[in-house]
């Protein structure tokens, strides 16, 4: 079975500073890794994903994530945080399969960017 751990319930960062939201995963076989963001009372918005290739993945709104196979991590990063980045961030994993495996989510990390 696959699982995702987001060790921090809350991350606080000052506007303009770099931010990191941590994620580690466990899956048999090759992982497909995703980051989603959820604003209050809204749906889940796709940010970026790692399937194969370069370990550094760039996504929407200036976010990027680095896949590290040896550490089984997929941390989300942004060089300069904005107040509007404040939201709930979910890391998710899908097990490689020729079909349609569902996403398994972490518990989420609430990011608060302070002006």
């Amino acid at each position, binding site marked *: 079975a696959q699982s995702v751990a987001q060790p921090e319930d809350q991350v606080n960062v000052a506007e303009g500073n770099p931010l990191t939201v941590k994620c580690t995963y466990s899956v048999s076989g090759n992982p*497909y890794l*995703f980051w*989603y963001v959820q604003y209050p*009372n*809204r*749906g*889940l*918005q*796709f940010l970026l*994903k790692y*399937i*194969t290739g370069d370990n550094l993945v760039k996504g929407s709104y200036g976010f990027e994530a680095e896949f590290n196979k040896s550490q089984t991590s997929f941390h989300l990063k942004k060089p300069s945080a904005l107040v509007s980045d404040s939201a709930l961030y*979910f890391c998710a994993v*899908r*097990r*490689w*399969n*020729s*079909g*349609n*495996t*569902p*996403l*398994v*989510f*972490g*518990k*989420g990390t609430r990011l608060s960017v302070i002006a």
Partner: protein
Amino acid sequence: AAGVIQSPRHLIKEKRETATLKCYPIPRHDTVYWYQQGPGQDPQFLISFYEKMQSDKGSIPDRFSAQQFSDYHSELNMSSLELGDSALYFCASSLRGSGNTIYFGEGSWLTVV
């Protein structure tokens, strides 16, 4: 671009009543997923359909059922509602293949009173 459409956006039901949620996937997407997100919780997978056939089953209660129709829209039927069913229900869609992105709708808020 067209997104996943869910209806209704908000629903209030009493205990033991029945509720039906509808989902219209992104055009040409062949797979639909249903997730439940309780207050302060991560989304939990309920069930998925590929080409109108059940594909995977997660933690969906026996009181719930779902199906995907010939036009690819899907409905989640919930009966004998309990207070604990109060949650945000997401529908999502994708093209077949685990490397493909799953896109989520805005969700349907169900409140059971």
